[in-house]
């Protein structure tokens, strides 16, 4: 426990008071928190891989994965899912764009629903159904 947190606890009687001394998080920091959680939604992450999945804006979801191969060479891939009124366009570098369908669509649907549910609760401490703060 850091000095400032100790001081906060002494002054307020709980760790919660510590938030009084922190600056507000930036959008980047919040999305970073979301993406770490989002990366866990697709099952086990292979050894040496780092995965992030997050909502960037109203129309964009990002899957980013990086890993190091056995020769120590770094690789990464970014997949962008664009939400259009008539479907979801999957965009990857060096690959043809296409509207996802069938099982792939259902998988992404499940991932986004779980993301929304968990991020609401675990990052923002809000009820996903009402967006109201969760009762403590």
């Amino acid at each position, binding site marked *: 426990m850091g000095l400032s947190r100790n001081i906060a606890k002494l002054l307020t009687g709980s760790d919660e008071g510590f938030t009084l001394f922190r600056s*507000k*998080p*930036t*959008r980047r920091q*919040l*999305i970073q928190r*979301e993406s770490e959680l989002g990366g866990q939604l697709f099952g086990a992450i292979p050894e040496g891989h780092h995965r992030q999945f997050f*909502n960037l*804006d*109203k*129309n964009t*979801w990002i899957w980013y994965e990086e890993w190091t191969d056995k020769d120590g060479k770094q690789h990464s891939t970014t997949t962008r899912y664009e*939400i*259009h*009124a*008539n*479907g*979801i366009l999957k965009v990857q570098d060096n690959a043809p764009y296409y509207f996802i*369908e*069938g*099982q792939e*669509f*259902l998988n992404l*649907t499940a991932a*986004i*629903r779980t993301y*929304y549910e968990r*991020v*609401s609760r675990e*990052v*923002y401490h*809000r009820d*996903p*159904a*009402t*967006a*109201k*703060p969760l009762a403590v």
Partner: protein
Amino acid sequence: MQQINSTLQYSETALSQRGTADVARTPAGRTYETFRFPYTPQERERKITTAKTQRTPESIRNEQIDSAVENALSQYKQNQQQEQQLTPEQIQAWAQWFMSAAQTLEVMRETEMGSRSDHGLVA
């Protein structure tokens, strides 16, 4: 679906009793037969040729079983594809929901950053 599954089970059992067999050997030296399904194009062609030239009650029955299996498999795959396909209306509804969810998340972020007062917009 149940009927298809029953047909598949029956037909696969029938095939395994007579089908195209490979003999394999376990590390302990024991032999057993493994069965390939569906047939390769070459096997299929050979079977058709054989069936045309040497039709027996047994081969006729086998042809019927093969045909039933292929039909059942085809129907099964078709059913699976149909189950996984969403209608354009369903896709549009989901797309709309994704956008609403993203907007709600954005409100939560802005509230957390302190740039927006709390309110109850939800997906």
